[in-house]
């Protein structure tokens, strides 16, 4: 027996290692009632421990490399590459001023929406607080679409928190370690999010396909869905707040497994393959965050400046009016205005009444109230037209 193990030692070690890993895989993957295999959303404790060890070993040197790269980039972009920065700054200031005004209007609409939703008993969740994080590493495989960020549970992160950028959604927090966290990108096959098409209001489930493309699955064939339509989060998955940009419809293809269904391929709004900084949504509330409220106040102040300027212009026109003669006196009541004064000697005289009425003369039915020509007698009114005798 001893000689058997000595002779086949290499093969025995290989088989033991393979069997151990196969058993480990069997623990992690389970069969669903529909017969398909799936992964549990939460790892078993042993698996989680291995991931923690791997992260603890790989993350420090990886973050060091990333920090060196960022340092070089920072030095270059902040001390060397500063061409046109002043002009850009001016342009951005103008853009901020303009957007503040727009924001004030939009926030008013949102507030109205909040009031209506409160009346309907439905509460919309708003992004209340976020944590900014830097992406420093990936899984290292093109078959697994996830990445690592430099914030962990010490920064308030928890599993299943939404990760976004200014452009759109990115993914959700999967594993959280003390100083780092693993984020599952939305284009991974194990990912999922509820989405809605912006104009057609069709809802579906977003996930990644095996090649890392974003797709919406489980939608009945619909001719209205066209490339170019924008897609947003639907807000029903308890991870992503409603209304965040997801992407744009790139093409619509037939579901290979179900005839009546289609798959919608999306172009992601956020650059999923070159992320540098992301925001982790740490809490959502049915009210605006303090920063938004401050912005609203600033926007209101700025918005108030515009009518004030208009008021100043009105005052200037009033000053001009005072200096010029006119028919309206602001110091007099309306019935005493010069416009209504009939004693004005410069009023134009009424036309003289005709001596011989004809078909063109005003009749008694005339609304003007003039005296009928037949009843009229010549009066000592000045005649403007000389009478000619036959």
């Amino acid at each position, binding site marked *: 027996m001893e000689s058997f193990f000595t002779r086949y030692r290499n093969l025995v070690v290989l088989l033991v290692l393979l069997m151990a890993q196969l058993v480990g895989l069997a623990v992690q993957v389970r069969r669903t009632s529909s017969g398909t295999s799936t992964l549990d959303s939460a790892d078993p404790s042993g698996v989680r421990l291995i991931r923690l060890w791997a992260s603890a070993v790989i993350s420090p040197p990886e973050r060091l490399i990333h920090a060196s790269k960022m340092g070089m980039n920072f030095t270059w972009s902040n001390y060397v590459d500063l061409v046109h920065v002043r002009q850009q700054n001016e342009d951005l200031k103008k853009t901020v001023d303009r957007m503040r005004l727009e924001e004030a209007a939009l926030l008013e609409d949102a507030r109205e929406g909040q009031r209506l939703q409160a009346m309907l008993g439905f509460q919309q969740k708003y992004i209340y607080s976020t944590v900014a994080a830097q992406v420093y590493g990936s*899984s290292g495989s093109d078959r697994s679409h996830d990445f690592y960020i430099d914030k962990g549970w010490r920064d308030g992160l928890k599993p299943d928190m939404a990760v976004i950028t200014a452009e759109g959604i990115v993914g959700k927090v999967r594993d959280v370690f003390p100083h780092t966290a693993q984020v*599952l990108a939305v284009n991974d096959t*194990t990912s999922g999010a509820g989405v809605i098409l912006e104009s057609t209001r069709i809802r579906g489930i977003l996930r990644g396909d095996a090649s890392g493309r974003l797709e919406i699955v489980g939608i009945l064939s619909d001719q209205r869905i066209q490339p170019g339509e924008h897609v947003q989060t639907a807000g029903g998955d308890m991870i992503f707040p409603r209304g965040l940009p997801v992407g744009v419809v790139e093409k619509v293809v037939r579901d290979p497994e179900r005839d009546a269904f289609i798959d919608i391929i999306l172009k992601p709004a956020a650059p999923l393959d070159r992320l540098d900084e992301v925001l982790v949504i740490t809490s959502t509330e049915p009210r605006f965050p303090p920063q938004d409220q401050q912005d609203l106040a600033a926007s209101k102040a700025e918005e108030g400046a515009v009518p004030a300027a208009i008021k100043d212009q009105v005052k200037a026109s009033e000053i001009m009016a005072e200096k010029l003669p006119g028919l309206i006196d602001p110091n007099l009541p309306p019935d005493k205005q010069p416009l209504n004064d009939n004693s004005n000697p410069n009023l134009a005289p009424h036309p003289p009444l005709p001596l011989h009425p004809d078909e063109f003369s005003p009749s008694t039915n005339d609304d003007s109230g003039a005296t009928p020509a037949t009843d009229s007698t010549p009066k000592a009114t000045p005649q403007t037209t000389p009478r000619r005798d036959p």
Partner: protein
Amino acid sequence: MSLLGAGTRRDMEIRRYPVLVYALVPLGALVLQAWLPRVVGRYAWFDLPLVITVYFALGRRNPLQGTLMGAVMGLFEDALSSHPIGINGIAKTTVGFLAGSVGVRIDVDNHTIRVLLNFALSLVSSAIYIFVTRFLLGLAVDWNGLTELLRATGNAVIALVLFPLLDRLQVRD
């Protein structure tokens, strides 16, 4: 490919490295594998842990050490991803064993042979990965023959450059 007999094999030199090299080179490969895809994006057609596994398994000419190194590298790769732990582990354990087994029969000082072996073992690793994922676990996996060929070519090119550099680190009597 020059095949050697068992007698000649005993006479061949088994490469030895400082202990730090055994620790730092695999660690460096894992760190760069996790970091470089962020830089090169979708063109990350390489698998540095596999290249390092093949290098040490061939150089040590020991299937046992190749198996263990492959298992550790594969498990670390799996642990960094969100996928089940063990898929890459099985693939690289097998590759390490094969490389160590082949190393005792061929002249591993020949660069061409090592590069070709790297290319072939990369394809073997991909095949095992796909087999385990799709047929043993029943999970979806997208594979493209061209991508696998490109990955194998990338590994071969890296081996062509990296192996001579790593050879300089070995302890010579």
